[in-house]
């Protein structure tokens, strides 16, 4: 008989803000906001004032004038997250990681760990000793239930749910808490007087598919506490985005194209590290007057080579940037990934593609050893002296901190 599935969801409490508080004890007990433009993370002290991730900083300042606002240090947060994920990998054979959370597959480890709740308690202790950060853990028979039960005991909590209790646990929870129900789906369901997860159960799969398309099938399973999604060792992102606000609004084509080349270089390098190639590329821009524009295009063939992606990105940019207004923000997004390192080429440019691949491999090697800022190519040279730099490259200003 196969072992009962057991998934442990680990969520880092108020991640970015908590790191800032332990790095600087003067921030302990004070409302702390991390973000530029909008809140990326805020401490529990700030949440008491009604602040939450995604809220505009202007609104946050109004609600909590005493909050300390920090732009954040994405690279430091990555270092802390990696230490936490290392702790997770010590107890679980498969761990799927995201920015501030992880799913640990503990299925079949009962003989190794004994009581899985005790193993989770040990993990929380280990993480706290190594980083000073607290995490909230939820243990359940699948990913969805593990995450949901963890939400009932935040922060620094630990909760578990058994498969036989799932039905009662889910029935009265708000429909928004069901995985796969976002704002739009929730609005639709609430307009039909479906307010709790239990209310969704009488709907047949045909109705749900008619309402939401293919995800309707998943919702029909999930509202009954069933979730068959497995824990993947490696995260393949849906998209890779890199964006920044200019330090001063600009219409200078050299600066704009230089920034795009830099952002493309960073995004493509991440794609090469993950061994995935995008089929689709997109440009987003926001003008100084707040108006924005975005467009995406497919590549002729999937590619994570900077010159291939950049050519299409610059083409999109020239079509999009039509107003005589300076730009405030630009961003690039790669999506539609296919796995595999080799660049798909036509017969006649195979040699050129091979040379390009070798050059990019060398670039990545140098940047891996000395930091991304060690090599600056082409148009991105125009950013030298205009933007601050550290060993990771130019300092970007981004609302999400992770892009």
């Amino acid at each position, binding site marked *: 008989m196969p072992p009962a599935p057991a998934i442990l969801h680990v969520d880092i409490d108020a991640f970015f803000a908590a790191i800032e508080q332990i790095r600087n004890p003067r921030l302990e007990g*004070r409302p702390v906001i991390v973000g530029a433009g909008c809140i990326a993370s805020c401490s529990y002290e700030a949440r008491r004032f009604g602040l939450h991730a995604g809220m505009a900083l202007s609104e946050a300042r109004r609600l909590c004038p005493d909050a300390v606002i*920090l732009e954040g240090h994405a690279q430091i947060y990555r270092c802390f997250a990696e230490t936490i994920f290392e702790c997770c990998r010590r107890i679980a054979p498969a761990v799927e990681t995201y920015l501030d959370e992880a799913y640990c597959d503990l299925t079949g480890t009962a003989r190794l760990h004994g009581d899985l709740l005790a193993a989770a308690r040990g993990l929380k202790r280990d993480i706290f000793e190594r980083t000073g950060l607290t995490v909230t853990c939820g243990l359940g028979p699948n990913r969805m239930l593990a995450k949901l039960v963890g939400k009932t005991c935040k922060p620094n909590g630990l909760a578990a749910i058994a498969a036989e209790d799932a039905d009662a646990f889910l029935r009265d929870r708000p429909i928004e808490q069901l995985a796969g129900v976002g704002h739009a789906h929730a609005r639709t369901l609430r307009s039909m007087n479906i307010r709790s997860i239990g209310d969704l159960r009488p709907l047949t799969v045909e109705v749900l598919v008619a309402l939401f398309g293919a995800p309707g099938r998943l919702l029909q399973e999930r509202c009954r506490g069933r979730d068959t999604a497995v824990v993947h060792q490696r995260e393949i992102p849906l998209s890779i985005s890199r964006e920044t606000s200019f330090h001063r609004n600009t219409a200078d084509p050299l600066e704009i194209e230089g920034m795009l080349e830099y952002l493309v270089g960073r995004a493509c390098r991440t794609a090469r590290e993950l061994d995935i190639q995008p089929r689709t590329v997109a440009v987003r821009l926001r003008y100084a007057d707040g108006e924005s524009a975005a467009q995406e295009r497919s590549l002729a063939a999937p590619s994570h080579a900077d010159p291939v992606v950049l050519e299409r990105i610059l083409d999109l940019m020239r079509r999009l940037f039509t107003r005589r207004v300076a730009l405030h923000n630009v961003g690039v997004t790669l999506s539609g990934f296919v796995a595999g390192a080799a660049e798909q080429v036509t017969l006649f440019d195979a040699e050129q593609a091979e040379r390009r691949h070798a050059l990019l491999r060398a670039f990545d090697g140098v940047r891996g050893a000395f*930091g991304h800022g060690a090599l600056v190519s082409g148009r991105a040279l125009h950013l030298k002296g205009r933007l601050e730099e550290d060993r*990771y490259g130019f300092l970007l200003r981004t609302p999400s901190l992770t892009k």
Partner: protein
Amino acid sequence: MPDLHLERIDEAVAVRADFQGGVVTPVAFRRPSREHRVVRVNARWLDRVGRHPTFYFSVIDEHGDVYQLRLEAADMVWRLDSVALEG
């Protein structure tokens, strides 16, 4: 609105450190003007970007000032990375 930020210093400093149990812990560091005794290590983290890792420490000295030190494993050189300033 309180202003609290890290001011970058990035200067090489002499550091007395404890390597007991294979874990490095700064005990004191000397700037040209005087020695600062570390009374508490607030946080430590390891940055693996690059060929050689870099160890970072957020510390408080005896005057209650918060500094960030880093030890670059490539050449085992300590640098005073930044200081936290308020106001």
